[in-house]
C-alpha cells in the first residue's frame, strides 16, 4: 500500500479490494474479516448531523472498525481566502461553523489584527467576549439537544431551542443575523450594544440558570441517560495527544487546557472564570464538561457586562474592504465551542492573503473516532460520535 505512484497520488484506485460500493467502501472492505457486515452510516443518517458518513464493520452489533468519510460538504474556504481580501473573507467564517460563528470571526479577525498590529478599543474587546460567550452557550445548548436526540430523547432539543432562540434574539440586536454571524471587524466590532441588549441579556442569565436545573433533573440525572453514557468511549490524555484533540474532549480527559486561559486573547485575562477538568474521560464526562461550560460562559457574560467600559467600538481609521495585510506569518488560536480554532495566516503583502489555513477542532476530534469506536456497540458508537460535538461544515470546511 505504501508503494504509491508518485505522479498521481490517487492511482491506487485501480486495485479495488471488492467491487461492491464506492471506492471508500471497497478500500475499507479490503481488510474486512469474513462474516462481518460493512455498514454505511450516512451521509444521510439521522444521527450523523448533516452529511458525515461513517463506514463501520459490524460483527453482530459490535463495531470492529470504523472509518469516517468526509468531503460531502467541502466548500474550499481556504482557497476562497486566497482570492478575497481579508475583509471580504469575514462572512465566510460564519459559514465554517454555523453553531459558533463568532469564535471563527474572532479567529480570522484576530489573526489579521495580530499580523498588522492593530489595536482594538477596550469596549470592543468586551463586546467580543460577550458575543462569543453567548454564542458558545447557544452552541452547547444545541449540542445538548442533538446529543440527547442521538440517544433517543426527542424532547430536550426543543427545550434547548427555546433558550437558543432567546440567544439568537439577543445576538441579532448587535449582529443583525441569527445564524451565520459576521460581527467582528478589523479593529473592533460592527455595532454597539443598546439598552435592549443589556436588558435581555440580564434577563436571560438568571433564566438560563434556572433552566439548567431543569436540564439536570430531566436529562442529566436520568438513569437511562447515565447508563448510556457512563464508562462509554473513554478517551484519555494519550489518545487526545496523538490525535490532537482539544476543547471539551481534552478537558474531560483531565487536562484543563483552554486557549482563553493558556494563550490569552482579548480581555479574557481580566475575567475570572473556571476551566473544568474531568471528572471522567467517558461520554458522560464530556457531557458534564459542556454543561459546566455553559455556566462558566454565563458567568463570563455577567462579569463582562458589569465591567463594560465606555468608549468606541471600532478603532479610528479601521481597515476598509480593500485593506491589505502586511507581509508576514502568524498563527492565532481561539477557544471555540468544540476546541481550539486556529488560523495560520501567511501574507506576502498582496491584496489577498497568500495562505490561510483553518484548523478546525471538529476535524481533529473526529479523527480519533475510528480508534475510540473500536469494539463498542453500534449504539455506543453513536453516543461517542455525538459526544464529540461535530459540526460537519467545520470538519470539511
Amino acid at each position, binding site marked *: 500500500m505504501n508503494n504509491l505512484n508518485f505522479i498521481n497520488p490517487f492511482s491506487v484506485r485501480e486495485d479495488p479490494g471488492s467491487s461492491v460500493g464506492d471506492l471508500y467502501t471497497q478500500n475499507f472492505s479490503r481488510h474486512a474479516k469474513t462474516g462481518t457486515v460493512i455498514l454505511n452510516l450516512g451521509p444521510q443518517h439521522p444521527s450523523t448531523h448533516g452529511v458525515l458518513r461513517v463506514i463501520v464493520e459490524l460483527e453482530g452489533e459490535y463495531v470492529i472498525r470504523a472509518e469516517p468519510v468526509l468531503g460531502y460538504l467541502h466548500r474550499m474556504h481556504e482557497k476562497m481566502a486566497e482570492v478575497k481580501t481579508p475583509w471580504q473573507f469575514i462572512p465566510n467564517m460564519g459559514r465554517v461553523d454555523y453553531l459558533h460563528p463568532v469564535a471563527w470571526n474572532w479567529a480570522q479577525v484576530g489573526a489579521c489584527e495580530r499580523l498588522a498590529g492593530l489595536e482594538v478599543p477596550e469596549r470592543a474587546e468586551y463586546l467580543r467576549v460577550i458575543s462569543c460567550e453567548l454564542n458558545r452557550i447557544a452552541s452547547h445548548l444545541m449540542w445538548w439537544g442533538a446529543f440527547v436526540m442521538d440517544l433517543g430523547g*426527542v*424532547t430536550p432539543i426543543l427545550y434547548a431551542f427555546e433558550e437558543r432562540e432567546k440567544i439568537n434574539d439577543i445576538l441579532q440586536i448587535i449582529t443583525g443575523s441569527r445564524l451565520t454571524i459576521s460581527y467582528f471587524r478589523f479593529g473592533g466590532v460592527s455595532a454597539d450594544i443598546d439598552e435592549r441588549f443589556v436588558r435581555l441579556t440580564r434577563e436571560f442569565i438568571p433564566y438560563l440558570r434556572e433552566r439548567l436545573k431543569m436540564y439536570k433533573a430531566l436529562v442529566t440525572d436520568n438513569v437511562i441517560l447515565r447508563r448510556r453514557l457512563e464508562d462509554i468511549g473513554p478517551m484519555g490524555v494519550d489518545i487526545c495527544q496523538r490525535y490532537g484533540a482539544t476543547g471539551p474532549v481534552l478537558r474531560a480527559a483531565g487536562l484543563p487546557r483552554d486557549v482563553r486561559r493558556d494563550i490569552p486573547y482579548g480581555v479574557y485575562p481580566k475575567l475570572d472564570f473556571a476551566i473544568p477538568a474531568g471528572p471522567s474521560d467517558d461520554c458522560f464526562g464530556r457531557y458534564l464538561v459542556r454543561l459546566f461550560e455553559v455556566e462558566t460562559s454565563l458567568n463570563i457574560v455577567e462579569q463582562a457586562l458589569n465591567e463594560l467600559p465606555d468608549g468606541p467600538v471600532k478603532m479610528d481609521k479601521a481597515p476598509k474592504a480593500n485593506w491589505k495585510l502586511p507581509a508576514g506569518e502568524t498563527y492565532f488560536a481561539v477557544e471555540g465551542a468544540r476546541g481550539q480554532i486556529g488560523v495560520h495566516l501567511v501574507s506576502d503583502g498582496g491584496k489577498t492573503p497568500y495562505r490561510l489555513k483553518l484548523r478546525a477542532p471538529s476535524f481533529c476530534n473526529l479523527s480519533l473516532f475510528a480508534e475510540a469506536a473500536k469494539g463498542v456497540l453500534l449504539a455506543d458508537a453513536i453516543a461517542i460520535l455525538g459526544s464529540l460535538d461535530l459540526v460537519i461544515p467545520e470538519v470539511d470546511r
Partner: protein
Amino acid sequence: MDLSITSLAQIIIACLMVIGLMVANAVVMVYFERKTAGFIQRRPGPYEVGPRGTIQAICDSMKLLGKQLFIPGNVDWLLYFLAPVLAFFPVLLLFLPIPFGKFLTAMSVDEGILLILAFSGLGVISNILAGWSSNNKYGLLGAARAVSQSIAYEIPMIMSLLAVIFLSGSLNLSQIVEEQGSWPWQWNICVQPLAFFIYLVSLVGETNRAPFDLPEAESELTAGFHTEYSGMGFALFFLSEYANMLLVSFVCVTFFLGGWKGPFLDGFWWTFIKAYLIMMFIVWLRWTFPRVRFDQLLNINWKWLLPLSILNLWITAIVVKLL
C-alpha cells in the same frame, strides 16, 4: 362452542367492527400522539388542516394510501409484501376475546388470554420477514433486535398475567373482570401492584415503543425493520403498531384495572377511558426518555423483570394456597 350461522355472523360483524376500531384508533392516536408531543415540547402540534389540525391524521393516511409503492431492488418480493399483511391480520384476531363491556365481547372464549398470547407472538414474524426480505442491513439489524426483544418481553408479561390468573382461577377475560369490583381499591392493581408494574414495563417493550423502541431506533438504525417500506406497507406497520398498543392496553385494563367496571356506572366507556389513559402514559414515556441500549434492554428483562415476576408468582401461589 357451537358454530351456528348466528355465531359466525357475529364473528364476521365483530371482525368488521374491530377493523373499524383499529383504523379509527390509529387515526385518533396519531393525532393524539402528535398533539401530546407538541404540547410537551411547547409547540401546538398539527394545527393547519381542519380545526386545530384534527383532519391532519386523515390527510396523512390518504397520502400514504395514494403513494407509489416503492420496491427496492433485490427484495424477496413475496415475503416483502407478506410482511405488512402479516403484521396487520393477527392483531385483528386478538381483539375478538376482549370484553369491552359486560355483554360486548366478539367471541367469548374460555381460554381468551391464551388466544391473545399465542397470536401476539405472530407479530414478530412479520417484523423479521420485513427486515429479512427488504435486503437492507438496517432492516436486518432491526429484525434481529425485534425478535430477541419480543421473545424476551413476552415471558415476564405472561408471568405477571399468570399471577392474576392464579387469583381469579380463570382464563376467561370476562370472568377475570367479574372478579373485580367497581371501585379502584377493588381492582387487581391493588392486590398485584408488582405484577402491574412488570406488565407495564413489558407492555412498552412488547409494543416496541420508546424508550424500548430498539427495532426501529431511528438514531441508530434509521427506521429498523421497516426502513424500506413506503406507502401502504408502511401504513400497515403503523396501523398494527397502534393496534398492538391498544390491545395490550385493553389486556392491562381487563387484568388489572377492572375492565368495564368503574365507579358510579359500569359500562364499556370505562374500558375505553382506562385503555386510553394507559396509551397516554405510553405516549408520555416516549416523549420524555432517551432510549436504552440493546444489552440494557435485555438485562432489564432477564435480570430484573423475570426474577421479580417469578418471585411475585411464588408469593401469589403461596398466598392463594394458604387462604
